């Protein structure tokens, strides 16, 4: 059997260094074993029959013809789900397999296992489903306030978060209004959903899968299979990117169901098209804003209404709504705020976690408003931001006081004061809008500069018991002290395994550190999301090191007859001898509290991360083509545990934001996905990717391990509005919707 990749040993390097990642060379050489490479001798292949309709009643399902296909081992429907046919991250509202109603285009209806993937697909096409097609609900705002059908028992509102603080009737001399829209973005990870479920003799199942959160998968699988946790064992397989798209289930329950029915190992791999149906996307949003300010540019009030289209099932919509609401005014001091943020059920594809998680949509809107305000005041856009910038001690609209660094003004100044990229001089056509497509030698090209700053909560919020578990084993191997660190936290490409090793090396003063494959034989590691793993799992690893060191130092007293503060590797060897020290530690960050359901007040978030961008663009204003010339970022990361990984995260987040600004959108018409391929859903190529100089601040957060601040998400928030602001500066257009496409630049009326 091909098992998950051994990527667990690496070179040297403690915290603050940038050791080579153990999986790096393998990935570059194409030798890394991703979940889609899993293999078992007598495995069969599973496929999923999905609904072609966004909204339909199922009158009947006929499996007869499919079962007749030679090579087919099982054809399953909801009737074969032994436990509860429901799952979901926050609400269990999604059927494992549809019963009598399908609520989105691509909803799973039946499963087939066969000895060859093509046989399975052919059998799948012989399943006859008789649908009564219903009109899809496709407009989120109308789904809340309109008189259309109710898609779930409790109506169409997944969650409404209001925020009321200060004077609700405040007035101001300068007022700007805006209505903004954000299209549906995809995580566009490269490794499609895949995994291998192996039935076990004890009646349980072992699942190898690419995911972001093993234990929450396990919980949902147990519920659907009606099995106790010790019968459902998960091991993380090689993950090819995630960005939030693997937080919900895809193949997990399906593969386990098929494995238990066939008694054979079952492999499932989505193709690219199915992957678009098989994971949640970023919520498309419509956002209404009104900003009131004094004549010298100080915010008096902000009022906002936000509609986030959650699609057919809840997924993590409730948490996304809370983020969009609580972060929806940006990192600005304003005393009087009114917010109503809705997450809504429709018949569009389900939306859930994606890097930035609610803060991205709001960020595009509030930053567009700040530019509008600057224009109304005749003020410099950076100046208006700096004048209102939060700092340590500021109060969030939730009433929470920022009790660590919040260098908003400093980040803005850093990107502003950077030298500008060179004017177009020597002609390098690749650097022009249109690239090498012969569109220009400079004709029609106008340069624009735009700024934005954003805020993102780090870790899980609103009273969630957010923790991670680390098991550390210290022993002597080959005459050297050697540690093995074991967590269930998912490495999805961000570099967690490197960080875990760095922490152990620093804390124990040893070199040889092995990371055990992540699985469910150790306690919950929490999700690889909310920029939280280095903080929470890093914190758990550090705490496990401290527990091990305490035991080690006790042994040292016996050995040396006196206490020692530190031990050299040689001393550790002599103290340990043949002894093994193993400690398992659960580590939590400080608790948060729920939001007041009427006023949205509360200590909701553990930590806030801030980043600012300056985008410089060249726009061919006649042809509507944009080239981002440079995208500079400044971010406070508290402490850069691995400086190279920090810059990598900032680059990646910036480009994902750039993609949303100018090209990325899943087109959904009447509930149907129209571009489920990487030929039709565009992500930036390297020619679209500009130089991205980065300034990293390290202002320690006293509450966090090593003072660190989560890095992954903040740059995704300010990147999009900065790019659009720069395009506005070049064109004078209003541009209230992302992504901005050529026709918006050639056809739109000037603002």
């Amino acid at each position, binding site marked *: 059997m091909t098992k998950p990749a051994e990527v667990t040993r690496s070179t040297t390097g403690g915290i603050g260094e940038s050791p080579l990642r153990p999986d790096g060379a393998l990935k570059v050489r194409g030798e890394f074993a991703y979940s889609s490479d899993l293999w078992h001798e007598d495995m069969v292949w599973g496929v999923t029959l999905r609904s*072609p309709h966004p909204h339909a009643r199922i009158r009947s399902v006929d499996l007869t013809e499919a079962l007749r296909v030679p090579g087919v081992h099982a054809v399953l429907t909801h009737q074969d789900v032994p436990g509860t046919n429901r799952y979901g991250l926050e609400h269990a509202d999604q059927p494992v397999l549809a019963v009598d109603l399908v609520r989105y285009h691509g909803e799973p209806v039946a499963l087939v296992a066969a000895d060859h993937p*093509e046989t399975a*697909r*052919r059998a799948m096409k012989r399943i006859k489903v008789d649908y009564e097609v219903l009109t899809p609900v496709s407009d989120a705002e109308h789904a809340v306030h309109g008189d259309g059908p109710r898609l779930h028992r409790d109506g169409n509102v997944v969650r409404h978060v209001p925020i009321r603080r200060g004077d609700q009737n405040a007035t101001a001399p300068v007022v700007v209004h805006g209505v903004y829209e954000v299209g549906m973005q995809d995580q566009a990870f490269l490794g499609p959903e895949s995994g291998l479920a192996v039935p076990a003799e004890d009646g349980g199942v072992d699942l190898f899968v690419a995911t972001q959160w093993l234990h929450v998968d396990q919980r949902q699988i147990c519920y659907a299979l009606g099995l106790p946790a010790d019968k459902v064992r998960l091991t993380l397989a090689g993950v090819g990117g995630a960005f939030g798209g693997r937080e919900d289930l895809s193949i997990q329950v399906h593969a386990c169901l098929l494995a238990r029915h066939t008694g054979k190992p079952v492999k499932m791999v989505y193709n690219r098209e199915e992957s678009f149906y098989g994971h949640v996307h970023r919520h498309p949003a419509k956002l209404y804003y009104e900003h009131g300010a004094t004549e010298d540019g100080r915010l008096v009030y902000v009022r906002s209404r936000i509609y986030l289209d959650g699609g057919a099932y809840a997924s993590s919509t409730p948490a996304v709504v809370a983020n969009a609401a609580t972060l929806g005014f940006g990192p600005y001091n304003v005393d009087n705020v009114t917010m109503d943020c809705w997450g809504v059920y429709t018949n569009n594809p389900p939306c859930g976690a994606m890097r930035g998680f609610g803060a991205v949509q709001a960020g595009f809107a509030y930053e567009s408003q700040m530019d509008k305000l600057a224009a109304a005041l005749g003020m410099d856009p950076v100046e208006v931001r700096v004048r209102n910038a939060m700092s340590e001690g500021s109060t969030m609209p939730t009433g929470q006081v920022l009790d660590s660094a919040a260098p908003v003004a400093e980040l803005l100044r850093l990107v502003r004061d950077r030298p500008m990229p060179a004017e177009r001089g020597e002609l390098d056509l*690749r650097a022009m809008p*249109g*690239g*090498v*497509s*012969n*569109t*220009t*030698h400079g*004709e*029609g090209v106008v340069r624009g500069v735009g700024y934005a700053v954003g805020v993102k909560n780090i870790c899980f919020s609103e009273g969630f018991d957010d923790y991670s578990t680390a098991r550390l084993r210290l022993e002597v191997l080959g005459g050297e002290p050697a540690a093995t660190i074991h967590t269930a936290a998912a490495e999805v490409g961000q570099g967690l395994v490197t960080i875990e090793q760095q922490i152990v090396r620093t804390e124990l003063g040893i070199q040889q550190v092995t990371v055990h494959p992540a699985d469910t034989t150790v306690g919950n590691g929490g999700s690889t999301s909310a920029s939280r793993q280095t903080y929470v799992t890093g914190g758990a690893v550090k705490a496990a090191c401290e527990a091990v060191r305490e035991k080690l130092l006790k042994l040292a007293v016996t050995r040396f007859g006196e206490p020692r503060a530190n031990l050299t590797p040689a001393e550790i060897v002599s103290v340990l001898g043949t002894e093994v020290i193993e400690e398992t530690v659960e580590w939590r960050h400080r608790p948060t509290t729920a939001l007041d359901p009427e006023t949205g007040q509360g200590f909701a978030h553990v930590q806030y991360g801030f980043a600012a961008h300056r985008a410089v663009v060249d726009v061919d204003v*006649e*042809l*509507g*083509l944009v*080239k981002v010339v440079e995208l500079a970022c400044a971010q406070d990361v508290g402490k850069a545990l691995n400086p190279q990984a920090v810059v990598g995260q900032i680059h990646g987040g910036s480009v994902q934001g750039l993609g949303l600004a*100018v*090209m990325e959108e899943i*087109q959904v*018409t*009447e509930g149907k996905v*129209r*571009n489920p391929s990487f*030929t*039709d859903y*565009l992500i*930036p*190529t390297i*020619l*679209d990717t500009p130089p991205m100089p980065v300034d990293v601040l390290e202002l320690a957060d006293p509450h966090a391990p090593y003072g660190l601040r989560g890095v992954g998400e903040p740059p995704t928030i300010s990147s999009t509005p900065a790019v659009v602001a720069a395009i506005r500066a070049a064109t004078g257009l209003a541009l209230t919707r992302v992504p901005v*496409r*050529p*026709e918006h630049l*050639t*056809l739109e009326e000037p603002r």
Partner: protein
Amino acid sequence: MREYRFERPGTVTEAVRRSGSDTAYLAGGTTLVDLMKLEVMTPGRVLDINRLPLRGLDATGGGLRIGALERMTDVAADPRVRLGYPMLSQALELSASGQLRNMASIGGNLLQRTRCGYFRDVSMPCNKRQPGSGCPAIRGENRMHAVLGTSDSCVATHPSDLAVALAALDARVQLQGRDGVRTVNLCDFYLLPADTPHLEHDLRPGELVTGVIVPRLDWAQRSIYLKIRDRQSYEFALSSAAVAIRREGDTIVEARVAVGGMGTRPWRLPAVERALAGRPATSNTYAAAATATVDGTRPLRHNAFKPELMQRTLIRALLELEQTR
């Protein structure tokens, strides 16, 4: 994918003899295999033509003859194409990606199918795929669709960049079938959708494209292919133009103009060519000539920007051409 038989004929005659209504020729496979996976194309037999002697690029006697199985990469890089017919090289190099161009053939490129999302989704109706079933694009997602040559049955764009440049060059397509060989003008080779959008070209059952002839045109040395797309590279044309100009001093004597991303087939614009001929090579001339494009355009809900973009594309192509050498 449906089951199919795979055959590898060794000669053109054998290939033609073996082909029937249920067969498809396989060249680079970059269109065919994709559409077979989607079950948009479901041939019972696939005839791999890669062993046939349809390679070679010949420039003897003026003009070019390009074998149908020549790869896009090789043709684009050939100095005779690069120097003599830059718009051809450019149209090829601005197509698809390097990997695809290494596989894809010239014949296959001319016969690639539309990227219309409904055509590619077998759960949807589509007149091109299933005559008489309807055209959801007319009221649905139609941003990338055509504004020229459309009908009430189909509004799909022809996606080939190469074909646009070839249309401007009066290229001819060489065919061989059971009844022998023939040559047709590329512009006549492509059919308008009318009420039979499933008939895309004048290719008789079993007929093979054996090559493409580009008639000699010395002044095509001064030509350009300009492409507008949603990202810097690796994307189909939202709008494109192939332009060649013959100038004497500051006067345009003759012009060749075709556009892509606009029509249901590669679209030659004789009215624009006439409006350019005999006029001074100035931006006024270009702007005036470009207005001749809008005649007969039928914009849809999401592509209303295209007629205007087509004009701007053309004007820019004429300006850019002045900058070359």
